[in-house]
């Protein structure tokens, strides 16, 4: 395994990983817009629109796990994936009936994006086979907002793909630190914000056992698809594929996972423990089903927490990157 510089690692991320994901997200979001329009014209059933919503959500999470570069600078998550949706704001937004994307800029993030669109689709599921015309128009604007963000991200990431990181050592140092920090941020978003916190909140606030846990998405199927999309993207940046042990990523020509960075620095034992910890967490997540109990979900988060601790205490230090807001960071 060769030694990989920070510049080569960034080329891997920004040239060989993110552009394809951004393009896929833009294409999927364009299909979400067209499916919404078709539904509003009575030419596509609600189930088809919902399936497209989920596919677009998965493509978003693949790009946004972890959030890097323009996703952070633009606050894309807040713009198109604000959770929890504020139902009161969503009702108010529907009453105001914005007509254009420009008018949607006056609508707050808690009434837009993937979660708001899911709420609208769920309300239609409960009340009838299709969205009411006014709701459908609003849903179309929400979908257009997602598409606009996807298009901008694709453009900005395409430009970054051409960046020669070797010419900007300060930019490279900053971007490499961001990647290492944000990978952990992505893991914690999945572990804590998306899985463990909703369960712990449910358990400690007197909610009845019959009341469902308020995970970010409205169905267990959607949540599981979301979590797996996040995990697979994190995993791709963490772990070498089996074939890459024989044919390591070519510096500057492929994504260089964190495991490869460790091996390249001679941290063989740590790289092995890292790979094992990633695999354990991945195996737990793969074994989950929509019917998995909350205790099974918590067991999975424990695996992820062990991965977090290893990353905080050893991996980041081995990569010479200080972690922000971590246990090693004090406060």
């Amino acid at each position, binding site marked *: 395994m060769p030694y990989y510089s920070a510049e080569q690692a960034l080329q891997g991320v920004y040239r060989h990983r993110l552009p394809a994901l951004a393009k896929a997200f833009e294409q999927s979001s364009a299909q979400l817009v067209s499916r919404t329009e078709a539904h509003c014209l009575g030419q596509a059933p609600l189930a088809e629109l919902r399936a497209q919503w989920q596919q677009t959500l998965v493509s978003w999470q693949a790009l946004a796990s*972890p*959030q890097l570069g323009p*996703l*952070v600078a633009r*606050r*894309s*998550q*807040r713009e198109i994936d604000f*959770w*929890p949706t*504020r139902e009161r704001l969503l009702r108010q937004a529907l009453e105001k009936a914005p007509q254009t994307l420009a008018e949607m800029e006056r609508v707050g993030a*808690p009434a837009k994006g993937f979660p708001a669109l899911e709420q609208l689709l769920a309300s239609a599921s409960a009340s009838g086979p299709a969205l009411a015309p006014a709701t459908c128009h609003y849903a179309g604007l929400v979908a257009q907002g997602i598409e606009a963000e996807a298009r901008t991200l694709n453009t900005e990431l395409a430009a970054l793909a051409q960046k020669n990181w070797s010419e900007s050592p300060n930019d490279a140092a900053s971007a490499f*630190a*961001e990647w290492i*920090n*944000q990978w*952990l*941020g*992505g893991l*914690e*978003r999945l572990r*804590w*914000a998306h899985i*463990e*916190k909703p369960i*712990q*909140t449910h358990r*400690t*606030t007197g909610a009845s056992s019959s009341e469902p846990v308020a995970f970010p998405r409205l169905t267990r199927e959607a949540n599981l698809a979301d979590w797996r999309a996040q995990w697979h993207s994190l995993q791709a940046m963490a772990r070498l594929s089996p074939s890459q042990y024989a044919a390591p990523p070519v510096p500057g020509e492929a994504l260089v996972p964190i495991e490869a960075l460790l091996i390249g620095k001679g941290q063989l034992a740590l790289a092995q423990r890292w790979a094992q910890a990633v695999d354990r967490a991945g195996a737990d997540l793969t074994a989950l089903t929509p019917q998995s109990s909350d205790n099974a979900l918590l067991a999975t988060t*424990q695996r992820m*927490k*062990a991965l977090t*601790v290893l990353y905080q205490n050893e991996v980041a230090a081995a990569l010479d990157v200080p*972690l*922000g*807001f*971590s*246990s*090693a*960071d*004090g*406060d």
Partner: protein
Amino acid sequence: MCRWVFRLLMAIELSASAPTGLSRRQYLLAVAGVALWPGAWATAISASATLVAAWEADNQYHVGLIAVAGDSWSVQQSMTVSTRPHALLVEPGGTVLAVARRPGDWLLRWHPGTGQQQWHWIAGDRRFNGHAIASANGAQIWTTETDLDNAQGRLGVRETRSLEKTDEWATHGMDPHELVALPERLGEFPAGTLMVANGGIATLPETGRSKRKLARMDASLVALNPASGALLGQWRLADPFLSIRHLAWDVSTKRLGIALQTEHPAAADRWRAPVLAVWDGARLTTTPEPPDLRGYGGAVAARPGGGFLVGCPRANALAVFDAEARWSHNMALPDACAVAVSAGHWWAGGSTGVLHAAPGNDAPVHLAVANAAPRWDNHWQVWPTQPAASLVT
């Protein structure tokens, strides 16, 4: 989190034999790099106390009571929490209020006597920043928070019993961290004035673990009216890379000690950055010609008799300052951080154990050798069920 790595000393303890002229304990401390203060061992102090602490062990975060007695310590009671706890507030009635570390989601009221728990989860667009205090009449809890929409600091005003928010004020800066209420008038600021440390670092959910825009840090100390939240005063340091984080009131000299943490990009600048500032009611003063303390003050407490003690884990020292922020000397203590003060006693935690000093005796004794391997968080409180006055010294 202040790092305690006890296993090293444990390994030494298991294998070491003391050479002639040193007691076994002296030897163990010496090989661990802990300074022995002249006269300390002859004083034969036997102190005990119960401390409220937070720590990480076995991939879990804990809040608990730690008994320090003789030359050992032990966990008396504890409970696990999901994310990292930070400040701990000892409340009347025998409860502890723990606050999640930034960006935090929860408050936990825990009754060690009964094990009862009361959880409070923060509303969607706010996060706790790790510290809380109670109002003098006990009716309110103030919590430092961040508005996730714009990263601006907020002071949550909460009803003590329910912990529900009843009001919210601006802290006039980002990243508010510790806060104190002035126990007495200082200059033009009446008793009860809220002093809030705005750390100045943007913290937003999508930035995850990245500290962004450090070149645009804007740390400040603010004074707020405790009834209305109105801004009464605001002070900034000349060095924009110093984050103002922790506060301690020195009743002897009527000064507010402020522990600092540097975010300087260059290592040489970080290492020699001051870790303490003092506010005298009118201006902020940092340590002149600061020593190399690695630019990181993890906790601050008023030193009995006047001045301040600052835990400096990255310098492996408890640093001693006078009330004008002038550095006096260091006490070697690997990974020193948490400091607790009560009735003239003080205790400081490090990875090789606990330092304790009794009233009138500033030569501390190294009390407790570690028997486990947690990673303690920054802050300790003295648990009042065993008041310091009952300590045998």
